[in-house]
């Protein structure tokens, strides 16, 4: 089964402005997701938050508040990671 999408059309030298725009928006969205929901970066922020508390740059309240938010974000990120962000919308259907 051959699925025609914007990537194949582009390989064939066919450019559809609407698909190009959608593709660009999709890339931006995926990039934003990866930045916001990158588990590794969030884990680093959790460790940094702990270190700032240990160096007394944060009060216990500030540390605990930030930690709760970051742990929540990490759970979200792990769920997002389970979703396939690379899945493409097949606008033209398949033939």
């Amino acid at each position, binding site marked *: 089964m051959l699925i025609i999408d914007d990537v194949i059309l582009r390989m064939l030298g066919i450019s559809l402005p609407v698909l190009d725009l959608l593709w660009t928006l999709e890339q931006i969205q995926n990039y934003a997701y990866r930045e916001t929901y990158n588990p590794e970066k969030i884990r*680093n922020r959790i460790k*940094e938050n702990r*270190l700032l508390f240990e*160096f007394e*740059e944060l009060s216990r309240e500030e540390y605990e508040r930030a930690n709760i938010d970051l742990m929540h974000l990490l759970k979200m990120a792990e769920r997002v990671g389970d979703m396939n962000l690379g899945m493409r919308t097949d606008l033209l259907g398949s033939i």
Partner: protein
Amino acid sequence: MARRVRRPEGGQQDTAKYVYCVIRSTGGKESFGEIGYDGKEVYTLDYRDFSPVVTDSPYKEYGMDESEVEVHRNVIQCVMKDHDVLPVAYGMAFKSKKLLTVAMSVGYEAMKKALRAVEGKHELGIKVFLPKGVLTDHQEEIAKVYREGFQEIASEHKDLSLFSERLLLNTAFLVERGRIDEFSARVGELSAKHGDLKVQYSGPWPPYNFVDIHILGKKRKGFR
């Protein structure tokens, strides 16, 4: 990481063996007191010349709960007062003693080798942190000065992740028990020399970063 342990069918609640660490055989059961999960006894089992340090614990999922991680850490700290330990990753429970024996058998040679490497040594951690609002172009050089200063004393070192832009050095050192005071003195000297930097010196820890045994699985560290 959490380990999911399933209850057996039929509703009967079985108990798992939760493993904290492995030590050289004590030649019989040794109890470390009721310091395990739910105030349960921490004791040794025997497998050839090794003894896994365990608690009888109901099947459950061990999540990233700070207080539970703390229990795990405290038990190992307690055991390492009198023994060289091979720390086991947090959350490792076995459905039965038999399964634990199987894991011990699979990992026996790796454990022997690992214990030889860390015997008589402790892990010490050093983090060097830039003060707030201070950036420097000499981060690498400063880190090198610290690392080399400690390497002279340590048997081994392992650079860990620099998880913050302000973190110049995050390194674990494996140090012979008899040289810990010398190491501490070096921390004092370097801290005094670079008084503007924040230094976190921690330990002695079990050799968490120098034991990496994978048994019955590829992704997680420790036992399964």
